[in-house]
C-alpha cells in the first residue's frame, strides 16, 4: 500500500491534496461509453429494469445532444478516454471499523477535522464512484430520516426513488445531465419525513481517485412538509495530468413549509471539468438555500437553480468562485418564478487572479401572471491583478409587470491604497491581500458551518500564496 506517514500533512497544496492511494479498485469498466457498458453498470448494481431502461434512454439523449457552445471551453473533453464506472470495494462498511485502513488514511490526509468525527455516525463518505462508508446516526433513524448512498436508496426505497428520480432534472435537460443519468453511481439519497428537523448537517466527502476517471454521482433529497435539513458536500481531489470529468446531478424537492440548505465547497484538482446540474423544486412557503463554493477545477459550469412552484416559495443562492491560473469558473444561479408571490435572491462573489477567469451567469425568469414576485440579484467580482478577467451574464426574462426585480453588479480590484492601509498596521502583503479577499467573501463564509468557513479560508490562503509580486 502506498501509505505515506501523515507528517507531510499541510506542507503544501500538492502534498495535502495531490496524493493518491493505489490499488483498492476491485472493478474498473473499460474506457469509453456505449450501451453495453451502461447495461453492465446497471447489472452489476442489480438494478430494477426501469432504472436500466432509464439509463439506456439517457445514453441515447446524451449521444444526440450537442455540446453546449456557451459557457466554458468543452472542446478538449475526450469522452472515449474516460472510465465511467469504478468500484473500490465489494461492500460498504457499516461501521467505521469496517472501513479499510487505506481509505481511512485518505480521510486522515484530507484533514477531516476532529470536530466532524463525532458526527461520523451521520457521515456518508464517497471514495471513488461508490460510497464506502455510510452510516446513520441512531436518532436520525428513529426520526425516520433516510440517509443512504443513492445506490442503497434505490435498493432499499425503490418506490420513493422511482417517484422522484429524474423529475427535477430530467435526462434531456442538458448533455451532462443525460450523461449522468446514463452512468450515475454513488451520491446521496436523503428523505426527511414531514415535520422532522434534522439538527446536524448531513455531510459527504467526495474524491476522484483514479486517473481519467469520471465521477457521476447523483443526489436526491426529499424534504416533506415542514421539515428541515442541511446537506453539506465537500470535495477535494488529487492532481493528475490528464483531464478528468466530474458531472453530477442533484435533485431536491422542498415541500410545503419545508426548508433545505445545500452547501458545497468544491476544490477539484485543476484538470477537472466540473459540470454539474443542481436544481430544486420549492413548493408553498418552502425555502431552498444553495451555498455554493467553487475553488478548484479547470472549468466549472454550475448554476444551482430554484424553481418556485407555489406561492410563498423562497429560493436563495449564494455562490462564491475563485479562479487562478488556467481556471475558468462559470457559475451563478437560476431563479424561476413559476407561481405568484414567490421570492428569490442570488448573491455571487467571484475572485480572479493570475489570468484566472470568472463569469457570473444567472437567469431570473418570471412567467406571465406571476404577480407579486420579488427577486434580487447581486454579483461582485474582485480582480487580484491586471491579467484576470470577470464577466457578467445576467439574463432576465420578466414577462409580468407587477413584480420587483433588482440587480446590482460591481467589479473591484485590490487597491494599492487599501493594501497600504493594512500594511501600515504591520500586516505583511500576503496576509493583507488574503485579508481583503476573506473580507470580500465574508458575507458567504458566515453562512457556512464553522469547519467549512475555516476550510474555505485556509484554501483561499493556499491559493493566495505566491500571488504576490
Amino acid at each position, binding site marked *: 500500500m502506498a501509505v505515506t506517514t501523515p507528517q507531510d500533512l499541510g506542507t503544501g497544496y500538492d502534498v495535502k491534496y495531490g496524493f493518491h492511494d493505489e490499488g483498492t479498485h476491485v472493478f474498473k469498466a473499460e474506457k469509453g461509453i456505449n450501451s453495453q457498458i451502461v447495461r453492465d453498470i446497471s447489472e452489476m448494481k442489480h438494478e430494477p429494469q426501469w432504472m436500466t431502461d432509464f439509463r439506456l434512454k439517457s445514453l441515447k439523449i446524451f449521444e444526440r445532444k450537442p455540446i453546449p457552445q456557451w459557457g466554458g471551453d468543452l472542446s478538449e473533453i475526450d469522452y472515449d478516454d474516460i472510465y465511467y464506472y469504478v468500484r473500490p470495494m465489494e461492500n460498504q462498511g457499516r461501521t467505521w471499523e469496517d472501513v479499510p485502513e487505506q481509505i481511512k488514511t485518505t480521510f486522515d490526509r484530507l484533514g477531516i477535522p476532529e470536530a466532524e468525527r463525532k458526527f461520523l455516525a451521520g457521515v456518508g463518505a464517497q471514495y471513488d464512484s461508490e460510497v464506502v462508508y455510510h452510516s446513520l446516526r441512531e436518532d436520525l433513524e428513529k426520526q425516520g430520516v433516510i440517509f443512504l448512498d443513492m445506490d442503497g436508496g434505490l435498493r432499499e426505497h425503490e418506490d420513493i426513488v422511482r417517484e422522484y428520480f429524474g423529475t427535477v432534472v430530467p435526462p434531456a435537460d442538458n448533455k451532462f445531465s443525460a450523461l449522468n443519468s446514463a452512468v450515475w453511481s454513488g451520491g446521496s439519497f436523503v428523505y426527511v419525513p414531514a415535520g422532522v428537523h434534522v439538527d446536524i448537517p448531513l455531510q459527504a466527502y467526495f474524491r476522484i481517485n483514479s486517473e481519467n476517471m469520471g465521477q457521476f454521482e447523483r443526489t436526491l433529497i426529499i424534504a416533506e412538509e415542514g421539515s428541515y435539513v442541511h446537506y453539506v458536500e465537500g470535495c477535494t481531489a488529487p492532481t493528475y495530468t490528464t483531464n478528468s470529468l466530474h458531472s453530477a446531478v442533484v435533485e431536491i424537492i422542498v415541500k410545503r413549509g419545508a426548508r433545505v440548505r445545500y452547501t458545497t465547497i468544491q476544490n477539484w484538482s485543476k484538470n477537472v471539468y466540473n459540470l454539474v446540474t443542481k436544481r430544486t423544486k420549492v413548493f408553498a412557503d418552502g425555502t431552498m438555500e444553495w451555498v455554493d463554493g467553487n475553488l478548484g477545477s479547470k472549468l466549472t459550469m454550475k448554476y444551482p437553480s430554484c424553481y418556485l412552484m407555489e406561492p410563498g416559495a423562497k429560493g436563495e443562492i449564494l455562490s462564491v468562485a475563485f479562479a487562478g491560473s488556467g481556471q475558468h469558473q462559470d457559475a451563478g444561479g437560476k431563479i424561476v418564478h413559476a407561481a405568484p408571490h414567490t421570492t428569490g435572491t442570488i448573491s455571487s462573489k467571484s475572485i480572479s487572479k493570475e489570468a484566472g477567469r470568472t463569469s457570473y451567469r444567472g437567469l431570473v425568469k418570471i412567467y406571465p401572471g406571476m404577480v407579486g414576485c420579488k427577486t434580487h440579484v447581486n454579483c461582485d467580482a474582485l480582480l487580484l491583478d491586471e491579467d484576470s478577467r470577470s464577466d457578467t451574464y445576467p439574463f432576465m426574462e420578466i414577462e409580468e409587470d407587477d413584480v420587483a426585480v433588482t440587480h446590482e453588479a460591481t467589479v473591484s480590484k485590490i*487597491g*494599492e*491604497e*487599501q493594501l*497600504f*492601509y*493594512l*500594511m*501600515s*498596521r*504591520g*500586516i*505583511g*502583503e500576503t*496576509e*493583507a491581500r488574503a*485579508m*481583503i479577499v*476573506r*473580507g*470580500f*467573501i*465574508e*458575507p458567504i463564509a458566515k453562512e457556512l458551518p464553522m469547519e467549512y468557513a475555516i476550510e474555505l479560508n485556509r484554501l483561499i490562503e493556499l491559493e493566495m500564496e505566491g500571488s504576490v509580486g
Partner: protein
Amino acid sequence: MSRDSIDSFPSQAISHEECVGAMSNLLEIRDLHVNIEDREIVKGIDLVVNRGEVHAVMGPNGSGKSTLASTLMGHPFYTVTRGQVLFDGKDVADLSADERAKLGMFLAFQYPHSVPGVTVANFLRTAVNSVLGPENKMPPAQFRALLREKLALLKMDDSMAGRYINEGFSGGEKKRAEILQMAMLQPKLAVMDETDSGLDIDALRVVADGVNSLLGPDLGVLLITHYQRLLNYIKPDFVHVMVDGRIVASGGPELAQELERDGYAGFIEKALVAV
C-alpha cells in the same frame, strides 16, 4: 504635560559608542525630496523628532503634508528622489510599510480606507500580533481586555469592534478608529494627518484626551493640522510651517497662534523669496 526643552537634546553624558544607536534621534528627516510621478512635491525637508516631543506641521492645502506623511510610512506610490528618513538611527528607505510599522512607526490617515468584511477586532488582532511578532503573540483574552480598555478610552461603543473596518463609519468615527488603532499598536512615532478634521467639538476633546494619554517620554508625535484648536488640547513643543514642499518656518506654539491670526500669506511670500 510639560516638557523641558533640555529633553530634546541628547544628553552630554553619552560617551560610549554602544549608546549612540540607543540614543539616536527617533525620527530624522534629511533633505527629503519626494516625487509623484515626475512632479516634485516635497522639495527638501529637514526635521528631527525626538522621543517625548510633539511637533505640529501646518501649511496650506496641497503643500505636501500628506505626501510627507505617506512617504514616511513607505507608501510605494511616492518616490524618494533625494535625502533620507532615519528611524531610530536606521535608514528605512528599503523597508515596506509593514516593516516600518513593526519598527514602531504609525500613521493616522487623513482619509482612512474601508476594508469590507474585515471586522475592527479581527483587523486589530492581526495587526497587533504582526507587530508583536510570532514569538510574542498576545493571548486572546488579553487582547480582548486591551481592546475594551482602548474602546472605552476613546468613548467608542463595544459594538464598533464587530463592525467592518471604516465601512459606513461617519467621518468622526473614522478618526476615532484611527486613534484606537494607534492606542492598540502603541507605536514609538505617531504621524497624525488631520486627525482633527471632521470631528465635532466633543469628539475633538475625546480624541485629544486619547492622544494625550498615550504621550510619554518614549513617544514622538508629528501632528499635521490646519487648526490652532487641536493645539489647545495637544500642546506642541514645536510648530513648523510647510509651504510648497518646504518647511519655511519653525518655532514654538506661538507660531501656530500667529498663523491663526495672520494666515499663510506672509509665509508664502517668504517661500517665494527663498526660491
